[in-house]
């Protein structure tokens, strides 16, 4: 009896398959894996899930014969939790695509599993440039930004403005270490000096002790190689300890619009940072924000949300063309097709999996310049796509033919 049902199901699946795409399990299942409850929950979290749904709606996947299902899970910023979830998704739940995955340590772990199981990995949240460097994979596309781009955008501008000695406050895990190294390299290349660094545990409430060490270092610039709640607390407490009044400048190396919102412009004004997306940049971004914000308690989308939207959209285009969800084939098609979406415009995905687009050096407005809530950024400089990301040859990715 069971066999008969199974055979019927197989036959049916076969029939559908000839008419539509060859999808394992009949559906294209996208798993959004990120921080749903911790310090990165606002910059990724539900916003990324909503963004993925919007991409599927806008692509009109159902009408094109691709049945898409979206699931999500909370990796709690722990590589072991993330790996276990992803294995369960692949082995039991039939997930084909993993999207977002902030927290570089988790993303690097997921990267390996996705390659092993031949699925698709669309990175938006994670920052480590190793994902398209020595850890690059034929199954991975790194969309929104990476540490190299952040260092290249922010650090270059600050060194050029005279900030030539640096001290780092670094989150003590893969992301922080990578960012510190990338920024350090940029600083040194511009004849600047790195005078020291202090590594703090992830999710630290009190930074005063680290700030005091940074203050004692007499470096001109204090580079914050951390993110989310850690960055917010560092900046807030730096204000309290009179860091900028003492002539030292803070460099937020990874800042999101929700961080600025949480800090308030009074504290955040004048900060310069690099991002690939700002909700109020053009009509398309405003339209995206208008649809997304009401679904996440009025928070405007971050560049990570935008990246999830755009990467899912592009992946769907690839699946539509090759009519399969075979991981390596989908990613190969994604690289072959030029990208074009409302949020990042036209671009390409390189052989190493790096998505190429413009980056922007933004500055937080002074309170008087802001017209209201969420009117926070002004553009200092557009970093053209050609120079925004690490040159292909320098990454050390094994997929790149020499």
């Amino acid at each position, binding site marked *: 009896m069971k066999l008969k049902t199974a055979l019927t199901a197989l036959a049916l699946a076969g029939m559908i398959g000839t008419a539509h795409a060859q999808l394992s399990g009949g559906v294209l299942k996208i798993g959004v894996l990120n921080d749903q409850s911790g310090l990165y929950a*606002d910059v990724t*979290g539900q916003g990324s899930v909503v963004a993925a749904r919007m991409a599927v709606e806008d692509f009109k996947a159902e009408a094109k014969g691709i049945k898409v299902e979206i699931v999500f899970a909370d990796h709690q910023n722990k590589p072991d939790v993330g790996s276990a979830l992803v294995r369960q998704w692949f082995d039991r739940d039939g997930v084909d695509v993993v999207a977002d995955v902030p927290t570089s340590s988790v993303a690097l772990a997921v990267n390996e599993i996705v390659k092993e199981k031949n699925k698709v990995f669309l990175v938006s949240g994670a920052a480590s440039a190793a994902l398209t460097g020595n850890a690059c994979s034929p199954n991975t596309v790194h969309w929104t930004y990476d540490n190299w781009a952040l260092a290249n955008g922010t650090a270059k501008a600050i060194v050029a403005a005279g900030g030539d000695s640096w001290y780092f406050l670094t989150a003590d895990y893969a992301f922080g270490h990578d960012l510190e190294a990338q920024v350090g390299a940029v600083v040194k290349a511009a004849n600047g000096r790195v005078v020291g660094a202090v590594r*703090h545990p992830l999710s630290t*409430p*009190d930074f005063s002790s680290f700030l*005091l060490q940074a203050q004692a270092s007499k470096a001109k610039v204090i580079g914050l190689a951390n993110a989310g709640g850690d960055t917010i*607390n560092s900046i807030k407490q730096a204000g309290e300890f009179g860091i900028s009044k003492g002539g030292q400048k803070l460099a937020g190396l990874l800042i999101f619009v929700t961080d600025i919102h949480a800090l308030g412009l*009074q*504290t955040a004004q004048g900060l310069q940072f690099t991002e690939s997306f700002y909700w109020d940049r053009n009509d398309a971004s405003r339209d995206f924000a208008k649809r997304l914000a009401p679904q996440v308690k009025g928070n405007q989308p971050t560049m990570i949300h935008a990246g999830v939207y755009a990467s899912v959209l592009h992946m769907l285009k690839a699946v539509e063309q090759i009519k399969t969800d075979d991981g390596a084939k989908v990613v190969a098609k994604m690289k072959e097709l030029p990208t074009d979406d409302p949020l990042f415009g036209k671009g390409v995905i390189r052989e190493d999996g790096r998505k190429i687009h413009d980056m922007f050096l933004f500055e937080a407005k002074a309170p008087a310049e802001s017209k209201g809530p969420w009117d926070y950024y002004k553009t200092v400089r557009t970093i053209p796509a050609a120079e925004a990301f690490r040159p292909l040859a320098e990454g050390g990715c094994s997929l790149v033919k020499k």
Partner: protein
Amino acid sequence: MDFFGIPPQALFGQLLLGLINGAFYAMLSLGLAVIFGMLNIINFTHGAQYMMGAFAAYFLLQYGGLGYWWSLLLAPVIVGATGVVIERLMLRHLYKLDHLYGLLLTFGLALIIQGLFQNEFGSSGLPYRIPQELTGGQNLGFMFLPNYRAWVVVVSLAVCLATWFLIERTKLGSYLRAATENPALVQAFGINVPRMITLTYGFGVGLAAFAGVLAAPIYQVSPLMGSNLIIIVFAVVVIGGMGSIMGAIVTGFGLGIIEGLTKVFYPEASSTVIFVIMAIVLLIKPAGLFGRVQ
């Protein structure tokens, strides 16, 4: 002259910062010690109640237009009142049972409260300004001490000592202590023991909320602020000796200082050093440094 390669300025600075963090540990562990000492309940909701205190301050400012000083007064009362409700509705049924039940109930409550706040307010937190009177700071030569941090140390020391005095040196305190030893006898003297217990819980919760208001201008008002702290505070209570008032105060400040020093010598270990100490103390003195063996 350097100490182990650390210039003395940095060392003094870190000692002072440790003291400031210690002030929070002391105040929170004090509330826990009071509650455990009097009710025999391990109050895992304490971190959430600390967080509620900070949120109460935020709401009072945002919707009531009441500033920091009013919050310092009102937030502990408001949050303390929610504590009274919790005690009346739930906790009082558990006094005769094993500690484990109280722990599970309060832990569950903490998760629920934190989850609700997070659902509503996200995780980045909300800004809360330092009151106008306490902005700025003093240059002490070896470090820049923000006025607000100095205020935190002073006020929390005062609150800690006042609480210790209240419980150990006043008549009311002696009733309380007697009621935990032998409630039936104290009740026979015409003292309403259940009401006293309820108010004690409310007071302990109020202390947590008070610490929350003090913390609001330093940290973000965030749903996660309590869960970051509660585990450390529990370690402090265990090291000091469960239920010991003085133990909680002394270990709170002491461990703050040790943690501060760790941040100079080996910052990576700063989040674990307290637990290492806890393990050592438990091995050598299982009742804690100031605890009595029962």
